């Protein structure tokens, strides 16, 4: 669809063209009329001058040209001519006519006759002619003519001036329209930026700060974002309820089977099937969670809160296991992720680390400059040989089946990290010598700044 800017500018340009064409037509016609009137007035003045010349020099007509002072009358075919004709038939003409004469009107009245005809050299002229009677009773036919070329030149010069002026007006108009469009579109651009920035915020947009024309749209976007969050929250709750509903009966069946097994009955197949059922359920819920993560909007996790919780929980679990857990993270970081999902990732990775650690699990967090947070979980356990690193994130893969677990933890964690646009690397911890899980998660725009992310991490745990 055509952009608003293109629409506004196109409409502006079309409107400007229509206005300019109409103005050119109107103003051009007015100025043409003005030029013609001026031309006619000049001709009249010359005609009057010619009458005065005849009246002054009528007694000795060879001097008439003295009364016609314009040098153009002397220049051959200059376009400005006079012609005096005595009623006796004597002819006196301006030197500019050279050897031609101007045609005389047929009628013999005394009216001042203005005519247009082709003059010397087929040059169209406007001529003014009149029979005048002098004080001594002589009658003269006095005629002046002026080439219409000068009028056309005047008119062309006027048109050109007019076009230049309108071109300037049009340019200023287009620039003004662009500026106006930019200014008018500013709230829309601001909205776009705000939506992008607030997409991961709970608080939504503020319709009041937008122009009244845009405010309803802002309110609608808020509604959409809330609806999206609600849908995810609801489906997550339903999934959790379903998990809850299925797991207790599953636990009962398992216990019955184990009791039967204790009595020497052959139930290995049934237990095996139940294991598959439980595993499948866990995998399905993990997948559902990861799928929802991809489309999540409006969510973020305050690491102060979430890591504080993980710190307390895993300190307790480490104490139970006779191991130690430390977490160090700078304050004020946020990641663009649902808190449940963040805790799911951290829980699975930390649980795995604690299971394998000899004595120590460390969690370190640092804010990166490019809107990301890096979390590293390291232990002092045996670590994983490099050629098996890829295997640990495969679903159901357990590197040591003697240690209890489903083999799903790291797979669930890695799926979720990727679903939220994060990345992870597995390796050996340089500090503790065991397994190291390092992940980079995108931060939520609202809170992170490179400054607060990288200053003086305060130790916890």
């Amino acid at each position, binding site marked *: 669809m055509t952009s608003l800017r293109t629409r506004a500018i196109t409409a502006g340009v079309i409107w400007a063209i229509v206005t300019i064409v109409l103005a050119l037509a109107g103003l051009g016609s007015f100025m043409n009329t003005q030029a013609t009137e001026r031309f006619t007035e000049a001709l009249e003045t010359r005609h009057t001058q010619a009458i005065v010349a005849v009246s002054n020099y009528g007694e000795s007509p060879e001097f008439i040209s003295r009364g016609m002072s314009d040098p153009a009358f002397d220049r051959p075919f200059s376009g400005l001519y006079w012609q005096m004709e005595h009623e006796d038939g004597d002819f006196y003409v301006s030197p500019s006519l050279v050897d031609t004469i101007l045609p005389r009107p047929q009628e013999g009245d005394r009216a001042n006759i203005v005519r247009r005809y082709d003059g010397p050299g087929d040059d169209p002229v406007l001529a003014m002619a009149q029979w005048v009677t002098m004080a001594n009773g002589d009658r003269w036919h006095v005629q002046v003519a002026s080439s219409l070329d000068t009028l056309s030149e005047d008119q062309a010069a006027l048109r050109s001036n007019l076009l230049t002026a309108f071109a300037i007006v049009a340019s200023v108009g287009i620039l003004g329209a662009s500026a106006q469009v930019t200014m008018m579109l500013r709230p829309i651009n601001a909205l776009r930026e705000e939506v992008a920035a607030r997409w991961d915020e709970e608080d939504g947009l503020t319709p009041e700060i937008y122009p009244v024309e845009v405010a309803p749209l802002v309110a609608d976007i808020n509604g959409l974002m809330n609806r999206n969050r609600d849908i995810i929250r609801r489906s997550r709750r339903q*999934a*959790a309820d379903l*998990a*809850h509903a299925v*797991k*207790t009966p*599953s*636990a*009962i069946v*398992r*216990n*019955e089977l*184990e*009791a039967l097994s204790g009595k020497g009955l052959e139930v290995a197949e049934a237990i095996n099937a*139940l294991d598959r059922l*439980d595993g499948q359920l*866990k995998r399905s*819920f*993990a997948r559902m*969670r990861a799928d929802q993560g991809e489309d999540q909007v409006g969510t973020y996790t305050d690491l102060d809160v979430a890591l504080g*919780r*993980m710190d*307390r*929980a*895993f300190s*307790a*679990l480490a104490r*139970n296991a*006779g191991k130690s857990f430390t977490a160090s993270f700078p304050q004020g970081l946020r990641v663009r992720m649902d*808190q*449940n999902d963040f*805790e*799911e990732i*951290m*829980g*699975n990775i930390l*649980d795995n680390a604690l299971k394998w650690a000899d004595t120590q699990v460390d969690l370190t967090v640092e804010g990166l400059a490019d809107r990301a947070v890096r979390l590293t979980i390291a232990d002092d356990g045996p670590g994983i040989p490099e050629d098996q690193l890829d295997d640990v994130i495969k679903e159901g893969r357990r590197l040591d089946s003697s240690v*209890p677990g489903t083999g799903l933890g790291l797979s669930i964690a890695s799926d979720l990290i990727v679903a939220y646009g994060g990345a992870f690397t597995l390796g050996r911890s340089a500090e503790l010598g065991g397994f190291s899980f390092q992940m980079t998660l995108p931060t939520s725009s609202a809170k992170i700044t490179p400054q607060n992310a990288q200053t003086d991490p305060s130790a916890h745990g």
Partner: protein
Amino acid sequence: MRILLAEDEPTLANQIKSVLNTEQFVVDVAADGAEAQFLGETEPYDLIILDLGLPIRDGITVLKNLRDGGNDTPILILTARNDWTDRVDGLDAGADDYVTKPFHMAELCARVRAMIRRKAGQSSPVFSKDEVSFDSRTNQVMVDGMPISLTSQEIAVLSYLFHNAGRLVSRTELSQHIYQYDGDRDSNTIAVFVNRLRKKLGSDLIETVRGRGYVIKAVA
């Protein structure tokens, strides 16, 4: 050792209870959160197993209320929810450990024993005093390496005294920890069990502080 099991699903509760009974634990069952909190506040338990999805009052609330009331009994949470958030909620509210449903009964029992042992400050599952040893995992008692057969009440008394070694335990306290809530609590029978234990394990193991109770002194 007396355990409070708060689980609203009666079949699962009975299964857990019967397995714990065979492990010589005495178990009271609470079917909802209000009952669980009441029993937790009024009865001396050695461990509480708390399902988080309880009716009337949810497990997290019960947990918080117990901890806020100064109860420091080890609490193991059972959660059927899939996510870590539930477990972290529980641990953050003061639980000591968690087991997720569906679980293996053996794992649950191992956690229960380990938690009770940790509360006693004992890292090894085997308690020893002179020539007598008690394996808390199997309830097996040996004297000079020879297995000795004990009744469940005798094991309960011995286990409680070993877990509280070095501390004087009154008959009332013993009876509170070896009988369940609705059981017949006759503290005089405690003397009978102690006498039998002395006959089987030697008279030096359990010392009587007249009029106050019993004590097993420092164990290895």
